[in-house]
């Protein structure tokens, strides 16, 4: 992926779905979503459908009839395939991953587009308003996503909107939220996250409750923005991704602004002085790792929702779901931007979703000694760092998207003593399955760099071994002869 040129980006070309509903229609039309007409149970059945669809890489289930909840529907696994990611960006569903990545980089390197705030009466998310004694999370079809979860999860594919009261920084983040009782949710907010920092920096020391709004059933690009570890404020990032201003609307009970076209908005306050139990929950690593514990409490004051609201569900577990796919995608590209900004001659950065966004593969021109260590230190030391613990650096001759090549480079070029660098006592997440209970409790991590570059001080003729491959060892004319005769030899044609 090459650095984008802002001039090449033509906003008018974008025709991305502007809402969850437009996205579902586009997915159905492309064969990437199925309408499920028969009634499904919110307790496990809907979750099991989504999980199986994720594991098969199948079309996204649009469940139109939910037991106990007439008028509501579910849309599961919204962005668990690159095809649906392409649709969300208004691209051809058959676009390749490098093409999607190039488009993401072009759009996110463009000028920020500020959101617009529309009148309440024009906001679809205000079609129904529950306040005061009417507030009851049981009125929403909150699913029990996995059997064995600690409760029903309201927020699995959503944005928790908060704002720093002094600096005014707006944050949209995906912090899972479990329904504890009819007016209380609890959730995992890690201390290194943007919301975690807002809470520890301002609200908790002052004992002040933090206003929040949870937006569910977002446009896919709003969900992408909430998921992306980008330094750009999410409302502006949505504008950059979609090519037009995000439509926001004021909340009913606080000063926050939320996506006007979202299906459901839950408004309330984060209690600084009260925690309730949350979890366990099936997580993106493919395990139930983080034990039930006392976590952040979200007290609900108001619920608004569209007529015939569709709740989005992400069912995290073994690969691959959108937690892995989208997070891998955005972490990789944001790291690429960071490394380029530091003048590192990277040829690309890729996270395979099946690594559950734990391993960064960085392709680089090995221009100087220590370049792999410099990359690892920048990656681990950045805001992105807590979310992964492995960086593998390969040279510019290795196709980072081809696992066969990457694996070969790893197994043959990474010196067991000189090529593996371990960083101890770094920031980690409590969700690492391999972490000890003590490490989980205090978000302590360890990191590792696999340096798969030939040492710069090796003589390229005498010291660096020759790669023995069809492309590398045969003269061009022999290669061409073999390729042109391939089917004549009796082999089927290779695409």
């Amino acid at each position, binding site marked *: 992926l090459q650095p984008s040129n802002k001039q090449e980006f033509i906003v008018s070309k974008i025709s991305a779905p502007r809402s969850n509903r437009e996205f579902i229609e586009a997915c159905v039309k492309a064969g990437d979503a199925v309408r499920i007409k028969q009634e499904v149970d919110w*307790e496990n059945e809907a979750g099991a459908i989504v999980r199986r669809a994720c594991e098969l890489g199948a079309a996204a289930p649009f469940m139109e009839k939910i*037991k*106990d*909840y007439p008028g509501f529907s579910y849309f599961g696994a919204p962005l668990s395939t690159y095809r649906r990611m392409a649709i969300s960006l208004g691209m051809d569903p058959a676009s390749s991953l490098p093409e999607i990545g190039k488009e993401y980089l072009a759009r996110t390197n463009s000028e920020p587009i500020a959101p617009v705030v529309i009148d309440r009466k024009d906001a679809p998310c205000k079609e129904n308003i529950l*306040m*005061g*004694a009417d*507030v*009851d*999370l*049981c*009125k929403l079809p909150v699913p*029990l996503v996995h059997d*064995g*979860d*600690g*409760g*029903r999860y309201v927020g699995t594919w959503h944005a928790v909107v908060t704002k720093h009261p002094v600096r005014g920084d707006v944050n949209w983040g995906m912090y899972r939220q479990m*329904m*504890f*009782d*009819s*007016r*209380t949710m609890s959730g995992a907010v890690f201390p290194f996250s943007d919301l975690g920092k807002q809470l520890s920096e301002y609200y908790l020391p002052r004992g002040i*409750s933090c206003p929040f709004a949870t937006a569910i059933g977002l446009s896919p690009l709003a969900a992408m923005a909430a998921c992306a570890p980008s330094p750009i404020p999410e409302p502006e990032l949505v504008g950059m991704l979609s090519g037009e201003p995000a439509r926001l609307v004021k909340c*009913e*009970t*606080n*000063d926050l602004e939320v996506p006007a076209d979202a299906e459901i908005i839950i408004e309330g*306050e984060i*209690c600084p*002085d*009260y925690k*309730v*139990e949350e979890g*366990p929950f099936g997580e993106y690593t493919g395990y*139930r*790792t*983080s*034990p*039930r*514990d006392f976590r952040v*409490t979200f*007290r*609900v*004051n*108001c619920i608004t929702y569209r007529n015939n609201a569709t709740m989005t569900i992400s069912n995290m577990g073994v690969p691959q779901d959108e937690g892995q796919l989208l997070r891998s995608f955005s972490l990789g590209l944001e790291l690429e931007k960071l490394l380029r900004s530091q003048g590192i001659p990277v040829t690309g950065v890729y996270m395979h979703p099946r690594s559950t966004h734990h391993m960064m593969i960085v392709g680089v021109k090995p221009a100087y000694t220590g370049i792999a260590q410099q990359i690892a230190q920048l990656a681990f030391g950045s805001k992105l760092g807590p979310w992964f613990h492995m960086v593998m650096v390969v040279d510019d001759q290795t196709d980072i998207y081809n696992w066969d090549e990457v694996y070969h480079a790893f197994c043959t070029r990474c010196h067991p003593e000189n090529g593996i660098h371990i960083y101890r006592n770094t920031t980690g997440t409590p969700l690492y399955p391999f972490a000890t209970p003590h490490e989980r409790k205090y978000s302590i991590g360890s990191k590792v760099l696999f340096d798969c570059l030939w040492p710069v001080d090796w003589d390229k003729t005498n010291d660096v071994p020759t790669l023995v491959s069809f492309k590398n060892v045969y003269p061009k004319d022999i290669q061409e002869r073999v390729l042109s005769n391939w089917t004549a030899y009796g082999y089927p044609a290779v695409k």
Partner: protein
Amino acid sequence: MNQWEVFVMDMGELAEGKDIETQHPHPQPRHAQVHLQARASAQVSSTWTSFPTSSRCASGRGQLSPAKFSIKVIEEIQRLPPQYLIIGEMQGRRWRRGASADFSGS
């Protein structure tokens, strides 16, 4: 006999015959209330016939204990600070924060 699943952080919390504080599910839920929770003081017994409700216990990551317990809820406990339960006014609009009974939702 009713059957519940109760989450405990540590199975050691289930001290025989002592009052403990735990979360318990809605005692008589409609389907939509099955997974609601509340804090309560309770007594547990490893003899599953001692109290009217039998209980399976799930610890930290959802692992179900093979042992069966019986449990008696003594009383529901509201730990939410009172300021989150009062009538308030925000942006000139009157609204009421959640009532005290967490199972009072319709």
